């Protein structure tokens, strides 16, 4: 992909640096004009560590000290905001960590995009959703892959067992991000990486930035895995709703299959993530337990913020359908 369209002075300056090159000692970044400008800049800086940009002047910019310094400032601001939001939602803790984490996730009440797609959405709305979801789904599981070398033996083996399934068990045809790409193409959308970045809102940039923040910092390994657990634990049933909604609208089998795959896969993954990955991590490193809940909260909260934005875009009020159980649906689903 090319560097994304700037959303203010800071993202414009970073784009220019990425495309034209950057002196080692530059330190005059403009102030971000808005939350959007800051979030896009951070997303762009993170992207240097994923697939990068075709118009990058020099691939070594990935580790340029001035870009890393700027990233650090933006990350501090993001983490501070995320922790402030979490501060009012301390978990109830008992002797059973897995029970507590499952209960914490299920007690979070949020808006659901999947519930709307299930019964009410029209085709255009579903295509809107697929476009903005594509930013994450085309790098599905990648932010969590960074956590692997930072873990002790038990949770490391458990995380790789889950990730192996995400990455298709060695078969590229089953790699989840690839299933998504096939679904996008079949639905008549662009499947190339980052194709729809310019139309995603702050809420989507923040969801993606939070995953990269947690994945890239060893210090935040607990949050990364708590995020994973909450994501997986809120995916199976919303994925079923998505699959049924897409079938109702006659969308192609490939994109329906993506969601169907996640019904059963994530019913497994939620158990692995909560019990074997987070549970074992907390046994060995009890000091990260609170960060596991912080990560779980962040996943649910950012999905709720996204869902409210998406529903508002469609002119749908939350809880429009009293018969439909509301649920948070960050997983592959909503």
């Amino acid at each position, binding site marked *: 992909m090319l560097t994304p369209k700037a959303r203010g002075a800071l993202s414009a300056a970073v784009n220019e640096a990425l495309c034209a090159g950057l002196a080692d000692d530059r330190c005059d970044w403009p102030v971000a004009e808005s939350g959007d400008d800051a979030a896009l800049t951070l997303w762009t800086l993170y992207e240097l560590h994923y697939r990068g940009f075709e118009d990058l002047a020099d691939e070594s910019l990935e580790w340029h000290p001035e870009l890393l310094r700027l990233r650090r400032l933006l990350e501090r601001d993001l983490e501070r905001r995320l922790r402030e939001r979490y501060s009012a939602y301390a978990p109830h803790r008992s002797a059973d960590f897995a029970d507590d984490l499952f209960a914490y996730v299920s007690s979070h009440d949020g808006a659901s995009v999947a519930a709307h797609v299930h019964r009410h959405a029209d085709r255009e709305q579903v295509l809107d959703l697929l476009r903005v979801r594509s930013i994450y789904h085309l790098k599905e599981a990648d932010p969590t892959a960074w956590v692997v070398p930072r873990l002790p*033996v038990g949770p490391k083996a458990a995380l790789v067992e889950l990730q192996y399934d995400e990455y298709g*068990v060695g078969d590229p045809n089953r790699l989840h991000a690839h299933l998504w790409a096939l679904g996008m193409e079949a639905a008549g959308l662009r499947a190339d990486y980052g194709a729809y970045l310019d139309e995603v809102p702050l809420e989507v940039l923040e969801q993606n930035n939070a995953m990269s923040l947690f994945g890239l910092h060893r210090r935040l390994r607990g949050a990364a895995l708590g995020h994973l657990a909450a994501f997986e634990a809120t995916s199976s049933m919303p994925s079923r709703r998505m699959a049924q909604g897409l079938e109702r609208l006659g969308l192609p089998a490939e994109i329906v299959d993506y969601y169907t795959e996640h019904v059963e896969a*994530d019913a497994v993954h939620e158990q692995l993530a909560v019990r074997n990955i987070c549970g074992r991590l907390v046994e060995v490193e009890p000091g990260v337990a609170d960060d596991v809940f912080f990560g779980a909260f962040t996943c649910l909260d950012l999905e709720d913020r996204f869902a409210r934005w998406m529903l508002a875009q469609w002119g749908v009020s939350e809880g429009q359908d009293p018969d439909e159980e509301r649920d948070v649906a960050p997983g592959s689903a909503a």
Partner: protein
Amino acid sequence: MSESRTFEHPDIVLCPGGPMLLRGDHVIQDADGVSHRTERPVSAVCRCSRSASLPWCDGTHKVLPEKLRPT
């Protein structure tokens, strides 16, 4: 906790209130005599009988009242 130990890694795990996790390749025969082959490294077999994807778990147990969940 020391890491220089042998870890438990069972082939079958009964999740409290949830499914049975099954590691490896297996064929499961359901109540109607139909066989289902596992398709992933770990599979979750429904234990609450209310999954819409039987014999596989689809997370339905989580919305059941406590008394209807598997022990």
